[in-house]
C-alpha cells in the first residue's frame, strides 16, 4: 500500500483552502488593475492595502515598509543588490555567511565580480555564526550584513537579535532572509533590529510566486524593478492581487497561532528524530539540537547516497529532500552540510524531512518504518558499508 506522505514543507507547501478561497474572486471578478480609478481598480487597491497591513502586522512593521515581490529569491536579490549599488560610494564591503540560501550567495558572488568585497563567515558544527568573528569582520567599508534567520536545510536558527545589535552599533544595514523563519518564529523587526527581511508565501501555505521585502524607513536602497509607480516607485509591475491577498491570508494564519502550530510540529519533529536515531545505526542529526526550526529534521545516513534514498522514499509515497549533489545535477553536495564540517561522502547521504501542518504521527511512523527498510537495502548494496561490517 503506497501512502502519500509529504514531508518537504521547507521546499514548498500546498495552498490552504482558506487561502485559495480568499484569492479566487480576484482572478475572475475583482480583477481590476489597482492603479485604475474605477470601482474594479479601487477594489484591487483596497485588497492590497489590507494585505499590506496583515503582512506588516505579522512582523511588527509599518505597512509602508512592506514591498511585495515575486518571492523570496527576488527579495534576497533586491536587498543585497539594491543596498550595494545604492551605497557603493559609502563602501563596498558586505558580510554574509557560508550557509545562506543561494539567493544570497550567488547574488554576493555576482557583486564580487562587480567590484564588491564579500566576507563569508564560517559557522560552527551546528551551523551558527560566531558573533565575535562577525564584529571583527566589520570595516569602515562595510555597508551590509546579511545573515539568514533560519537555515532551510538544517533548520538552525541564528542569533538574529545579537546580529542586529552589532549591525546597529556599527551603523551597518542588517538584512535577514526570513523565508523559513516567518510563521515559525515570532518576529518583531524593531525588537530584533532588522532593517530588511525577506519573506515568501509558498513556504507557509500561500501561493508560489509572491513574497515581500520589509525595508525599514531610512534604508538607502535602489528600486528593484523600474517602471510603473507600484510599491511606491520601488518595485514596478501590475500588482499580483490574488497572490498578494493569498500571501496575506497565509501569513495571518501562520502567525495567529504560532505557538500552537509549533507545539504540534515540535512533537512530530522530536518523535521523528528519536525514532530515526533509535532505529537506524550510523546516522547523524544535522543542525542545532535546540536552536532549530520547529519543522526541520535533517539526518545523514552513512554509506548511502541521498538521491537513491529519495527515490526509494518516493516509491513508497514519501516526499523528502536531500543535500546530495545528485539531486541538483552538480557534483558537490550541499554547501550547508560541508560548512558544518561534514565530509563529502556523508553530506551526500543526507535527508531532510520537513514537517507541515498536515502531517500526523501515523505518517511519522510510516516514514520511519520505510526508512529502516530502505536504508538497510541501500546499505546492503553499498561497497562502503561492506568495509564497515568487516571492521566490526
Amino acid at each position, binding site marked *: 500500500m503506497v501512502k502519500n506522505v509529504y514531508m518537504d514543507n521547507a521546499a514548498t507547501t500546498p495552498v490552504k483552502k482558506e487561502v485559495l478561497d480568499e484569492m479566487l474572486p480576484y482572478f475572475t471578478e475583482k480583477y481590476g488593475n489597482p492603479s485604475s480609478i474605477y470601482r474594479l481598480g479601487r477594489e484591487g487597491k483596497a485588497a492590497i492595502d489590507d494585505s499590506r497591513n496583515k503582512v506588516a502586522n505579522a512582523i511588527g512593521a509599518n505597512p509602508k515598509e512592506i514591498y511585495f515581490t515575486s518571492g523570496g529569491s527576488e527579495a534576497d536579490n533586491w536587498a543585497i543588490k539594491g543596498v550595494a549599488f545604492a551605497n557603493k560610494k559609502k563602501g563596498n564591503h558586505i558580510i554574509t555567511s557560508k550557509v545562506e540560501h543561494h539567493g544570497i550567495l550567488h547574488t554576493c558572488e555576482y557583486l564580487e565580480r562587480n567590484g564588491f568585497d564579500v566576507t563569508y563567515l564560517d559557522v560552527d558544527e551546528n551551523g551558527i555564526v560566531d558573533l565575535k568573528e562577525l564584529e571583527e569582520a566589520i570595516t569602515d567599508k562595510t555597508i551590509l550584513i546579511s545573515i539568514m534567520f533560519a537555515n532551510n536545510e538544517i533548520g538552525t536558527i541564528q542569533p538574529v537579535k545579537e546580529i542586529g545589535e552589532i549591525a546597529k552599533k556599527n551603523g551597518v544595514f542588517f538584512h535577514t532572509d526570513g523565508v523559513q523563519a516567518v510563521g515559525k518564529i515570532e518576529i518583531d523587526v524593531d525588537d530584533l533590529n532588522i532593517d530588511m527581511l525577506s519573506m515568501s508565501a509558498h513556504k507557509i501555505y500561500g501561493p508560489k510566486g509572491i513574497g515581500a521585502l520589509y525595508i525599514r524607513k531610512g534604508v538607502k536602497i535602489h528600486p528593484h524593478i523600474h517602471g510603473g509607480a507600484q510599491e511606491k516607485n520601488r518595485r514596478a509591475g501590475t500588482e499580483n492581487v490574488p497572490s498578494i491577498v493569498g500571501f496575506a491570508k497565509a501569513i495571518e494564519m501562520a502567525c495567529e497561532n504560532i505557538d500552537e502550530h509549533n507545539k504540534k510540529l515540535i512533537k512530530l519533529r522530536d518523535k521523528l528524530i528519536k525514532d530515526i536515531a533509535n532505529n537506524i545505526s550510523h546516522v547523524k542529526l544535522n543542525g542545532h539540537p535546540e536552536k532549530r526550526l520547529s519543522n526541520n529534521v535533517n539526518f545523514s545516513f552513512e554509506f548511502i547516497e541521498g538521491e*537513491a534514498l529519495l*527515490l526509494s522514499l518516493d516509491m513508497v509515497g514519501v516526499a523528502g529532500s536531500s543535500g546530495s549533489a545528485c539531486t541538483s545535477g552538480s557534483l558537490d553536495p550541499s554547501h550547508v552540510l560541508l560548512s558544518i564540517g561534514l565530509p*563529502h561522502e556523508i553530506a*551526500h547521504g543526507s535527508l531532510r524531512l520537513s514537517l507541515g501542518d498536515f502531517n500526523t504521527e501515523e505518517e511519522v511512523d510510516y516514514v520511519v518504518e520505510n526508512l529502516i527498510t530502505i536504508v538497510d537495502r541501500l546499505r546492503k548494496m553499498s561497497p562502503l*558499508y561492506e568495509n564497515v561490517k568487516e571492521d566490526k
Partner: protein
Amino acid sequence: MYSEKVMDHFSNPRNVGEIENADGVGQVGNPKCGDIMKMYLKIEDDVIVDIKFKTFGCGSAIATSSMATELIKGKTIEEALKLTNKAVAEALGGLPPVKMHCSVLAEQAVKAALLDYSKKNGIEIEQLKDFDPDEDVHEH
C-alpha cells in the same frame, strides 16, 4: 526525470552482491563525488559466467551498474570490452544529461574488473593498455 527502465533497475537491481573468490574485482569512483561502483567477475574460458556489483551512488548509478552487469553476463571478455557507456544508457532508455557520467562509471567498473582479472592471471588485454581505473570521470 528517469525512464521506467532506470526506475526498474534501480528498484530491482540485477546481480547485486559479491562473488567470493572472484576472478576479477574492480572499483571506480570516489565517495567525495557521491558514487563508487565495485564489480566482481567470475570468468571461465574467457566467458563472464557470473558478475555482481555493489554501488554507492544515486539512482542512475545503481541502475547503470545493474544494466551493465546484465549486458555483460554470459559474454566473452572480448565482447565485454566493447561495452560502451552509451550502450548502457541506451539500454536503460536514456539518462538525463547530468547523469551520463554514471554510465561512464559503469563502463569503467567493468574494465577495472577485467584489468584486475588480467593482472591476476598474467594476461595482457590489449584494449586495457591505457586504461586507468583511478582516473576521474567527473570534469571537476
